[in-house]
């Protein structure tokens, strides 16, 4: 964000919310909307942070380190009031506290979803609270357990090799590829579309949907509403097609699933698919991209992985620790004090698992990437009842994507004119453009 001295008048004000009851047009299911602070430069990361400021993800490690040492729980008036803990201890405590924090909203935006949506939420089980959460999660856990996921390895390898073939002629020392746009971004959409039984040619659509959900945090309400309708229409058409033509995939599984002896209502089938699409794509491609960004700058790590493939069992976890892509969020369910901070009902709390993973009090040499780190209790996939249920699949995709890339290209680096990586905006951190020179 450009620092415009005229605009830079201190922290963005929270402002009074607009309520749907006042007759204002709000997006569906949103009952309260706070004014946007889009474009207002961040005055101070401790008191006015904004995860939608492009500087945030670009400099995330430095920002978190500085906050952790000076102000471990930052606060901003933006988005109607939001907290940002950076110490492992605080992130952990909040992740486990399902009484004081609700998962009704897991993406920090200016609107608040109607509390009547609880405990199911828009995308069960990630937006669900106990006791419903457990029932919704149980349905999906069985589909993502290791012996369901491990057999996908061959298919994933094929997807990766095809993308590498599609890069075309490589002139060693000359060719620059975009490892995010031309490689990482294509792997998870291909995998998830196969699992859901969606048309493989819709991969571009998935990227468009996900960009709108995760990165257009500050879009105007009318734009958000139009987008939500478009997304729902797409999902409804896919579900209807599966109702007419049942097959062996996750969509058909969800259509046939039951909770308490009853089939899932259409909204819950759609919500669960929405979750799998949103959570399964951007997160994993970000992890692949960030890992390749690291390797491009650390040829010794590439060499170690190539010469000693057994080190991958530890390296995989270290990539996930050091470059964890996912920050979750909670809403404060009732006033509570955490780390001396008075969190008020309906405040947002970001849960930056990547920041927790880099807390020196939690793990030694937290700022160093140690490829064979043996003790690594990282929380890249979250902690507690909302642990990422696709973590087995994500790990498999990340491992295979790295293995295939370094086997094809033993030598790659950032371009000679420097790091041109573009980092994402919002709660999923990863490269959106990653130019690399193939050596």
């Amino acid at each position, binding site marked *: 964000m450009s620092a415009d001295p005229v605009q830079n008048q201190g922290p963005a004000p929270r402002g009074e919310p607009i309520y749907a009851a006042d007759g204002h047009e709000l997006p569906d299911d949103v009952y309260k909307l706070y004014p946007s602070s889009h474009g207002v430069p961040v005055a101070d990361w401790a008191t006015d942070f904004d995860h939608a400021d492009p500087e945030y993800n670009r400099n995330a490690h430095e920002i978190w380190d500085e906050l952790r040492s000076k102000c471990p729980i930052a606060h901003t008036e933006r988005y109607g009031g939001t907290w940002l803990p950076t110490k492992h201890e605080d992130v952990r405590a909040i992740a486990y506290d399902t009484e004081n924090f609700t998962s009704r909203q897991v993406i920090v935006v200016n609107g608040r979803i109607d509390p009547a949506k609880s405990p199911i939420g828009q995308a069960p089980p990630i937006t669900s609270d106990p006791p419903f959460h457990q029932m919704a999660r*149980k349905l999906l*856990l*069985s589909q*993502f*357990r*290791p*012996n369901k996921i491990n057999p996908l390895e061959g298919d994933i390898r094929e997807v990766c090799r095809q993308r590498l073939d599609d890069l075309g002629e490589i002139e060693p020392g000359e060719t620059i590829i975009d490892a995010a746009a031309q490689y990482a971004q294509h792997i998870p959409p291909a995998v998830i579309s196969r699992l859901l039984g969606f048309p493989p040619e819709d991969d571009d659509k998935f990227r468009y949907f996900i960009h709108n959900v995760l990165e257009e945090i500050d879009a105007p309400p009318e734009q958000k509403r139009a987008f939500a309708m478009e997304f729902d229409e797409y999902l409804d058409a896919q579900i209807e097609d599966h109702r007419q033509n049942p097959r062996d995939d996750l969509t058909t599984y969800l259509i046939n699933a039951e909770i308490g002896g009853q089939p899932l209502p259409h909204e819950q089938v759609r919500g669960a698919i929405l979750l799998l699409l949103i959570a399964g794509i951007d997160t994993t491609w970000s992890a692949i991209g960030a890992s390749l960004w690291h390797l491009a700058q650390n040829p010794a790590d590439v060499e170690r992985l190539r010469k000693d493939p057994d080190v991958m*069992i530890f390296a995989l*976890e270290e990539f996930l620790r050091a470059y964890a892509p996912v920050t979750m969020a909670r809403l404060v369910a009732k006033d509570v004090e955490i780390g001396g901070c008075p969190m008020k009902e309906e405040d947002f709390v970001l849960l930056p698992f990547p920041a927790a993973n880099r807390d020196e009090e939690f793990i030694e040499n937290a700022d160093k990437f140690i490829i064979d780190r*043996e*003790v*690594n*209790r*990282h*929380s890249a*996939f979250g*902690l*507690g*009842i909302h*642990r990422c*249920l696709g*973590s*087995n699949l994500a790990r498999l995709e990340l491992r295979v994507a790295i293995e295939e890339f370094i086997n094809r290209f033993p030598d790659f680096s950032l371009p000679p004119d420097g790091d041109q990586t573009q980092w994402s905006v919002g709660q999923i951190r990863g490269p959106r453009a990653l130019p690399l020179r193939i050596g």
Partner: protein
Amino acid sequence: MRLQVNSELCQGHNRCMVLLPELIEADDEGYAVVLEDGSVPEELLHKAQLAVDNCPEFALTLEDD
């Protein structure tokens, strides 16, 4: 030494299963299950300790018989 999984704490991260497939497997929902009585033979002690040290939920423990 004996391995134990606290099933109240386990959230199915599956880190232990990857590090110690000889003694740990996943149930139908991906939660960890210790095979047989959890006794750890001498040659697997190091791997068992790794599994314990890598559980994000502190759900796995290694205790004296």
